[in-house]
């Protein structure tokens, strides 16, 4: 137990360091600008006085480390500064959008995870059958499709030809849950199709890897049914890699939402970051990047820790 706690603590500390370094990169990236932020915003023809005034307003006249620490402490208190494009509070811009994005990712995950586990286990049970080969080809193709292709095919079939689903996913804070689920179903399915292939393949590979081990052969020789061998004997040991894959794909979902949100005009964080990149609204892009990166790092950290905690060899040391 002590060993596990130590390892978990080690990973947590490492994750924290990575988070700090990433925040530093996101903050300092702007310093790579030729000239500085004020120059980039105001253009070449800005006079010296306006530049100085603008620098003072953005507090660019302070040394770099002071500004970084200030930025970081403000963010920890929920204050991301102001947008350059419309001077609104960034936290206000992000507020409901972050919730929307997490909702969409979670929705997609609740469809994708059980689906891919079932498909993966089935593919492992009926290895080298036609079902297995068909799944292999389908998954290979689905990882090759750009997200927007899948999204527009879905729109074309279900919104335009059949007229079952709305092609725009407009949700607001007061949309009731049922309607919210209905309008975000198509984006969620798109995301599901994007991640299921990978998760399924890994589940299959993890189980097949184990099927070659002697204790599984023993279980087979005892005359246990195939389902029992896979579910009771192979699955618990395959759990660590599978959980790892699931969490990594959840992390991917968080990023994958960007394009899907743009296609379906879903008011989430992804759309905000794309809009802000187009407007070169650097503080907003920084804030969004930090949120995306932090979520991504935390999920990967969770994957790490879960795979330590669920490892049967570590749980029952000799």
């Amino acid at each position, binding site marked *: 137990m002590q060993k596990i706690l130590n390892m978990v603590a080690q990973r947590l500390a490492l994750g924290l360091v990575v988070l700090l370094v990433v925040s530093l990169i996101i903050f300092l*990236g702007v310093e790579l600008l030729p000239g500085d932020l004020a120059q980039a915003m105001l253009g070449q023809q800005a006079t010296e006085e306006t530049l100085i005034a603008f620098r003072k307003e953005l507090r660019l006249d302070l040394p770099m480390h002071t500004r970084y620490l200030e930025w970081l402490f403000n963010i920890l208190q929920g204050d991301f500064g102001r947008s350059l494009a419309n001077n609104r509070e960034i936290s206000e811009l992000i507020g409901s959008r972050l919730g929307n994005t997490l909702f969409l990712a979670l929705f997609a995950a609740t469809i994708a995870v059980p689906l891919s586990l079932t498909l993966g286990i089935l593919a492992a049970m009926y290895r080298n059958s036609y079902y297995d080969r068909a799944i292999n080809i389908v998954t290979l*193709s689905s990882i090759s499709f750009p997200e*927007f292709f899948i999204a527009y095919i879905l729109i074309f079939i279900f919104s*335009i030809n059949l007229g079952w689903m709305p092609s725009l996913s407009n949700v607001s804070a007061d949309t009731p849950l049922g309607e919210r689920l209905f309008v975000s179903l198509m984006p969620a399915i798109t995301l599901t199709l994007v991640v299921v292939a990978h998760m399924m393949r890994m589940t299959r590979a993890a189980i097949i890897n184990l099927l070659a081990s002697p204790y599984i052969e023993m279980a087979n020789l005892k005359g246990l049914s195939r389902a029992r061998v896979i579910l009771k004997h192979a699955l618990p040991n395959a759990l660590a890699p599978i959980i790892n894959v699931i969490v990594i794909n959840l992390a991917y979902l968080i990023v994958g939402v960007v394009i899907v949100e743009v296609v379906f005009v879903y008011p989430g964080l992804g759309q905000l970051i794309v809009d802000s990149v187009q407007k070169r609204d650097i503080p907003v892009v920084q804030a969004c990047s930090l949120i995306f990166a932090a979520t991504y790092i935390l999920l990967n950290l969770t994957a790490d820790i879960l795979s330590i905690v669920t490892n049967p060899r570590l749980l029952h040391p000799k």
Partner: protein
Amino acid sequence: MSEAEIKTSLESADAKAPPPKTSKWDEAKLELRKAPLSAKFGLLVIVSYVFAAVFAPLLTPYGESEIVGEVFMEWDEVHILGTDNLGRDMLTRLLYGARNTVGIAFITTCVAFLIGGISGMLAAILGGWTDQILSRIVDVLMAIPQLIFALLLLTIFGTSIPVLIIIIAVLDSTRVFRLARAVSHNVVVTDFVESARLRGESMGWISIREVLPNIMPPLVAEFGLRFCFVFLLISGLSFLGLGLQPPTADWGSMVRDNATLITYGDITPLLPAGAIALLTVGVNFVVDWFLHKTSGLRDGQ
């Protein structure tokens, strides 16, 4: 990839070595005939894309961004796939798109392999501090999701083709680095590298003559996979309006520009997206076949 796997892949390569009489060309033809249907299909797709990319100007009478008619014209004999949102010939744009989109993705992947491959091999051969520093830099770069990092950097440096190529290549080289370092690591500890070191061969000799030939198969397969990834990422960025900029014909931005047509039940905007998907599927099929031939890398993952 473990040492055992490298060994088996080397052995299987030895076992498959043909009798010395047959030429390389005959050998290639024989392999091709034995290839599964999916791999043949993949090769056919790749060849036809390269053909379209090279001969785009000869295949169509119109210029890349020449306005030839009304906006959003239907499919007919003159404009086989109709016209786009500015009245440019859709088929022409598709053909030129093969040149731009695929070409840029290919160059980017090459640059990524140059950076990642060299630094990965160096990290494995030199070890020690070089390895530590390079590996930690890569760890941090990989901790940030690629698309988000690309968006951040594009905001800072603006969107132009050289900037795009460098940003994506550097971000993607991290994956190449990890692979190159891991596979070189298995080779660096072997006796023949040790003896080359004792002979006093230079760094360049060791990396090019001793290590590189032994890590080629996994790197070639990875090249196919990375190309797909880079291709999808650049298309995605173009679709968001942040990749290749107009008036360059590019598949991602063609989907974006003509997306409104879909709401009228017209599938034309799906064609460039389909073109992206088809090429990626084709490359994946070929890579799958290659991996299957050289080792069990895919299943072992």
